């Protein structure tokens, strides 16, 4: 009996992996992909892990595939960059058991440092891409992806976007299929990608894409919906839903396989409609190919390459409907902020006081770039804080970075920061690296990593000791400080930054939202002692507000009693009380 359940796109992808008989899944957390692994772990039939980074995750999945089982890796779009080294080459080698990479793009940059389109990476790597348009398809396409992977001897990318990954819709559940493990046979010409072998595989890859493009014309996931022929759309993914919403009577060619493209099918469809629109979020990947075939169509002339699409966009640009939409009220913005009681705020308040610049990294602590903390000067990608600081020193000399540190979280340090630190040691840098160790991967919602002592599947394992790891690199100056001990922290930062050697300061305080993190105190103002100086407001804790008379209030439901404001107040006008 089939059961229907409301599922998040990512939950449906996980279900699809389960039903497809996946045996191994590896990933590094990253919005909007994280919930895929968090749901896969609910299926005991699948071995699932958090790997330290996306390259490792991809290689784990490759190994599992070569051994003969169905395997997958999942990551956000920028994670695909990290995994691109193995991806480009496994494209040549092909697979044994089916191999799928789920790549989650982020049009609109809800939680990312760029807006890149994974289809461009896939074209360069010559890897086919499937793109579902709702939760049901997310599940169905996952299963189909594994079939295609094995049929065409190729890794497959399943591309999702934030809107699909984080939307819920009904999904009909089916049973898991248990594909037979494919026997492993030594095959050096296929799986050892040295020049002589890779040359031959390159020929294979080109033919594989050509064959798939041909077959794509009859694949059930590429669907023609003929209606009114005045207007036709070629579209895919979530953009398809906007077409159905705004122009339900238009003809549509909905592509499920978005690379390679079914040329004949597209030519046929184009010949049947009067005006052809290409409606694709982000890059003009379809459009440029379709135009190169001499087909007349309208795309990025009227649709943006930036951000998310919508039905209103079509109503305006295609239907020329001028809807009466009221202007948004002019109100103060509400950007994301560090939580009340966040240890990063404490560290940044000290750095701010010392007027120290920080080369930043990817995590909640990136928020240290904005007022009122304004400490972080740069953020590029995972692990870049340490290496960019090193580059500054090599460009301008060691004195130049005496008022700089690198700040990086524990999970990001384990991801790729550790490589950069090795480089700093090896190439005789003198930078100060602050590892903001909050015992979790915070921003994506608390995932474990190699230094937390827990696995994705909930096992307790020996935690890699970051302090000892730094020591093992030969770094003499490794100091561990409680993030909320601002007095010691200030002293340590001054000392370490002054040294002409690499220093690592590990600020160790768990994320305030971490489960089991209990707070026993709360901060309360003592108005009669308050001098209205506003110093306590400087670190920007959202639990504090300034009253009309200049004194402050502390929201008891928000305060976690970290005591940062109390420590700053010179007049004892804030107390902590037991709760």
């Amino acid at each position, binding site marked *: 009996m089939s059961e229907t359940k409301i599922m998040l796109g990512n939950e449906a992808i996980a279900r699809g992996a389960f039903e497809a008989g996946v045996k191994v899944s590896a990933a590094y957390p990253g919005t909007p992909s994280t919930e895929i692994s968090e749901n896969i772990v609910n299926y005991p039939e699948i071995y699932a892990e958090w790997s330290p980074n996306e390259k490792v995750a991809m290689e784990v999945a490759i190994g599992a595939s070569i051994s003969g089982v169905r395997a997958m890796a999942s990551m956000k779009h920028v994670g695909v960059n990290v995994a691109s080294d193995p991806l480009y080459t496994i494209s040549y080698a092909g697979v044994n058991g089916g191999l799928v990479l789920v790549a989650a793009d982020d049009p609109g940059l809800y939680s990312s440092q760029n807006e890149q389109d994974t289809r461009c990476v896939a074209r360069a790597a010559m890897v086919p891409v499937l793109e579902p348009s709702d939760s049901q398809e997310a599940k169905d396409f996952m299963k189909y992806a594994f079939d295609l992977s094995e049929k065409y001897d190729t890794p497959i990318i399943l591309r999702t976007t934030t809107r699909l990954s*984080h939307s819920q819709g009904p999904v009909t559940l089916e049973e898991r299929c248990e594909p037979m493990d494919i026997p492993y046979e030594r095959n050096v010409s296929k799986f050892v990608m040295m020049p002589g072998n890779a040359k031959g595989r390159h020929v294979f890859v080109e033919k594989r894409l050509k064959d798939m493009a041909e077959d794509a014309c009859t694949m059930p996931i590429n669907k023609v919906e003929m209606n009114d022929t005045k207007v036709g759309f070629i579209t895919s993914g979530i953009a398809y839903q906007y077409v159905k*919403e705004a122009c339900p009577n238009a003809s549509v060619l909905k592509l499920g396989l978005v690379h390679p493209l079914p040329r004949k099918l597209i030519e046929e469809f184009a010949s049947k409609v009067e005006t052809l629109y290409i409606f694709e979020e982000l890059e003009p990947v379809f459009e440029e190919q379709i135009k190169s075939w001499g087909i007349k169509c309208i795309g990025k002339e009227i649709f943006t390459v930036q951000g998310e699409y*919508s039905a*209103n966009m079509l109503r305006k640009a295609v239907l020329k409907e001028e809807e009466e*939409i009221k202007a*948004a009220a002019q*109100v*103060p913005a509400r*950007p994301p902020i560090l939580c009340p009681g966040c240890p990063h705020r404490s560290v940044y308040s000290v750095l701010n006081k010392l007027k120290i610049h920080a080369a930043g990294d990817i995590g909640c602590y990136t928020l240290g770039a*904005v007022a009122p903390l304004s400490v972080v000067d740069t953020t590029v990608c995972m692990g870049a804080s340490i290496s960019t600081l090193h580059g500054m020193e090599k460009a301008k000399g060691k004195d130049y970075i005496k008022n700089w540190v690198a700040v990086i979280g524990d999970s990001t340090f384990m991801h790729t920061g550790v490589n950069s630190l090795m480089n700093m040691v090896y190439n005789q840098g003198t930078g100060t690296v602050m590892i903001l160790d909050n015992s979790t991967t915070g921003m994506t919602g608390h995932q474990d990593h190699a230094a937390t002592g827990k696995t994705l599947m909930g096992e307790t394992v020996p935690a890699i000791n970051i302090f000892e790891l730094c020591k093992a690199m030969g770094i003499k100056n490794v100091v561990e400080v409680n993030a909320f001990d601002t007095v010691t922290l200030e002293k340590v930062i001054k000392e370490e930054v002054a040294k002409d050697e690499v220093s690592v300061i590990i600020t160790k305080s768990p994320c305030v939202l971490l489960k089991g993190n209990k707070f026993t105190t709360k901060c309360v103002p003592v108005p009669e002692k308050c001098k209205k100086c506003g110093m306590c407001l400087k670190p920007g804790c959202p639990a504090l507000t300034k009253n009309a008379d200049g004194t402050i209030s502390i929201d008891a439901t928000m305060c976690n009693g970290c005591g940062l404001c109390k420590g700053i107040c010179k007049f004892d006008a804030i107390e902590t009380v037991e709760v």
Partner: protein
Amino acid sequence: MKTKNIMIVGVGGQGTLLTSRILGGITVDAGYDVKLSEVHGMAQRGGSVVTFVRYGEKVAEPIVEEGQADVLIAFEKLEALRYAHFLKKDGAIVVNDHRIDPMPVVTGAAEYPENIIENLAKEHSVYSVNAMDEALKLGNSRVFNIIVLGVAAKHMDFSKEAWLQVIEKTVPPKTVEINKKAFLLGFES
């Protein structure tokens, strides 16, 4: 039936996800097609968050666009104002009479608008509730969102029993009783 468009807006951490799951649950139980769209990740860290719920016979797009919302459920006043232009002409706002200063207000770079609820009421049907105080009276400030949902439920066509059933299925088992109480407090107000 025309697709119904509901929006839940608030500040990251106020429980918009749980509320949208209850809403999604009740529409499915009633046999509708439904799509929900939510916010995860960085934006959730104390930022302005919005969740869309659309239900009807067949729903295509998962988002509610400007000028289309039937009901706007706001867990914070400023957020009600921020998203008011998403409402249909005859749409209703259910707002928690509660203020959380955004960072530009905390740092003094901007001012928190005055008389938000009164001004919204000039153009829309506004139903406000001081859910924080009511929740504290129930003994758990965190269930304020379910009180607000209870008020909003008066503007939707599902029975009290159906709501209580879906709450029971959706919230953590230990909190079923207090959440039911919170819902009724809003629903029967």
